[in-house]
């Protein structure tokens, strides 16, 4: 029994010790950091790996024969392989490093926009791109812009009252005109985990490509891009223990090789003449200029850290914390969850509203208690509009949070209610 326990849990205190900021006090209170869906902190191991690389092996990559250049290139390419393994991708050439998730969506959108008429990526009037009403702005605005540029039509899958995708009209929303279905794996505002299999099956029926926004799934659960069956998968480093400044577009090799380039510049070219240029194969084709070298090295170290703890254990830990939070909120009068209020198919981000208290005031009052939560539209303004709220308060836990911290939050909510209810 205790062996079983040991195999499914980990030493959260030991993990916490790796994150210096968790020792901070905010206004005399211990920091309770529950803003992980916005960005996570970085363990010493990741920072040390990046620094060791920069201090002893740094150089530009890909273009040199000297020793440091070889070492830096090796480290950078090994990071690509590490990320491919993290995603269970069959081929490291399918991993493109970007600066964040947002660049990855724009890369695909502009590449599609740049495609010659008649190509499988080209879009025009009559073609459609489908998203969902719960997309992060980063997986929505690029498609709006693409449709504006090309004359294609943007459609979206609406939401049910309890924060799930309303699939009633899926067949008409994803149809023979649909070129791409781009949707979020786990919502950053509602916490909802979407049924990838159902959506991918429908997309395949009509020959649409699929792009899965994994910004909120890759940090929190094992991801196998082959098993998911999608064509593109996107993640962002800063939400999964890596520094800001690095993201990943994974795409099936056949697609990446066929897509026209996005940004032009050094490293993405083959032959450059003043009169015109030809382009390198993927992934180089999509990494114009000096890449995010040390950030990629740090991301690989973050993969090591996460796999070291075990993503299945992390998922189980967060599941327990989320359950405790949902149970606690359910017991509080005047507090309601926006999004699924059960544990089924949901991630660790929990949005809620406190009757009569504006989220800004909730966030600020919790901050005075040392509790860091996010307030606002969480870059998903259409979701707020859908549920008739100007903004939400969101608590999101990660591998280093504890049950005690959830309890501090729950007490904090009561304190806020008392203060503002006077």
């Amino acid at each position, binding site marked *: 029994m205790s062996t079983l326990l040991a195999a499914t849990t980990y030493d959260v205190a030991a993990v916490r010790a790796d994150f210096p900021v968790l020792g901070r006090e905010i206004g005399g209170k211990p920091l309770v950091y529950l803003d992980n869906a916005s960005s996570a902190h970085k363990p010493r191991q990741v920072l040390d790996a990046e620094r060791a690389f920069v201090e002893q092996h740094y150089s530009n990559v890909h273009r040199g024969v000297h020793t440091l250049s070889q070492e830096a290139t090796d480290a950078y390419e090994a990071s690509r392989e590490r990320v491919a393994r993290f995603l269970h991708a069959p081929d490291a050439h399918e991993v493109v490093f970007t600066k964040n998730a947002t660049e990855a969506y724009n890369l695909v959108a502009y590449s599609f926009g740049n495609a010659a008429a008649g190509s499988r990526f080209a879009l025009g009037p009559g073609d459609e791109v489908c998203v969902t009403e719960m997309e992060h702005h980063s997986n929505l605005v690029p498609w709006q812009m693409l449709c504006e540029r090309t004359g294609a039509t943007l459609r979206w899958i609406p939401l049910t009252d309890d924060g799930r995708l309303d699939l009633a009209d899926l067949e008409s929303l994803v149809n023979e005109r649909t070129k791409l279905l781009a949707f979020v794996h786990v919502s950053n505002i509602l916490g909802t985990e979407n049924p990838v299999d159902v959506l991918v099956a429908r997309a395949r029926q009509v020959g649409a490509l699929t792009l899965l926004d994994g910004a909120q799934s890759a940090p929190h659960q094992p991801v196998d891009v082959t098993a998911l069956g999608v064509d593109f998968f996107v993640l962002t480093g800063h939400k999964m223990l890596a520094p800001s400044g690095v993201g990943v577009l994974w795409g099936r090799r056949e697609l990446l090789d066929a897509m026209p380039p996005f940004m032009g510049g050094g490293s993405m070219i083959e032959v450059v003449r003043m009169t015109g240029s030809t382009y390198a194969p993927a992934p180089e084709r999509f990494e114009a200029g000096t890449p995010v070298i040390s950030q990629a090295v740090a991301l690989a170290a973050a993969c090591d850290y996460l796999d070291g703890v075990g993503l299945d254990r992390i998922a189980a830990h967060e599941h327990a914390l989320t359950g405790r939070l949902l149970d606690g909120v359910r017991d509080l009068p005047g507090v309601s969850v926006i999004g699924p209020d059960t544990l089924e198919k949901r991630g660790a981000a929990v949005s809620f509203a406190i009757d009569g208290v*504006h989220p800004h*005031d909730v966030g600020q009052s919790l901050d005075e208690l040392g509790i860091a939560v996010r307030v606002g*539209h969480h870059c998903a303004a259409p979701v707020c509009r859908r549920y008739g709220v*100007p903004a939400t308060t969101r608590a999101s836990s990660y591998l280093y949070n504890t049950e005690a911290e959830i309890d501090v939050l729950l007490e904090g909510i009561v304190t806020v209610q008392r203060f503002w209810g006077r």
Partner: protein
Amino acid sequence: MYQEIILDHYKNPHHKGLREPYDVEVHHVNPTCGDEVTLRVKVVDGVVEDVSYDGQGCSISQASTSVMTDLVIGKAVDEAMSTGEAFLELMQSRGQLEPDEDVLEDGIAFAGVSRYPARVKCALLGWMAWKDATAQAVATTGEGSA
């Protein structure tokens, strides 16, 4: 940050509710948090005769709008505008400015807010709406002293 003055104005806002007559009505939104205000201005002989408003938002945006109405109603447009400038300056000071109570009255309670850039926009929502509406009123009616 949550001074009593702010909480008082939040609970009991002054001059709230839309009134007739007015020269100009504007609608301002803070896109980052969805706070919004609808605001009307009446200018007579270069003087801010009335400001009325309705809106929803956090304590800071609501209280600041309430304080604003106290500060501008009955003042010459010029003078009210420079009070607005003083408030703007305070909000951009990142906690480095000692506010002048003679000029800003209850507005000095917002000095602490200036240390929170994310909230500065809240505190300015009503002021920006008023400035916009008043400038329009002056332009369209030929009112104001300039």
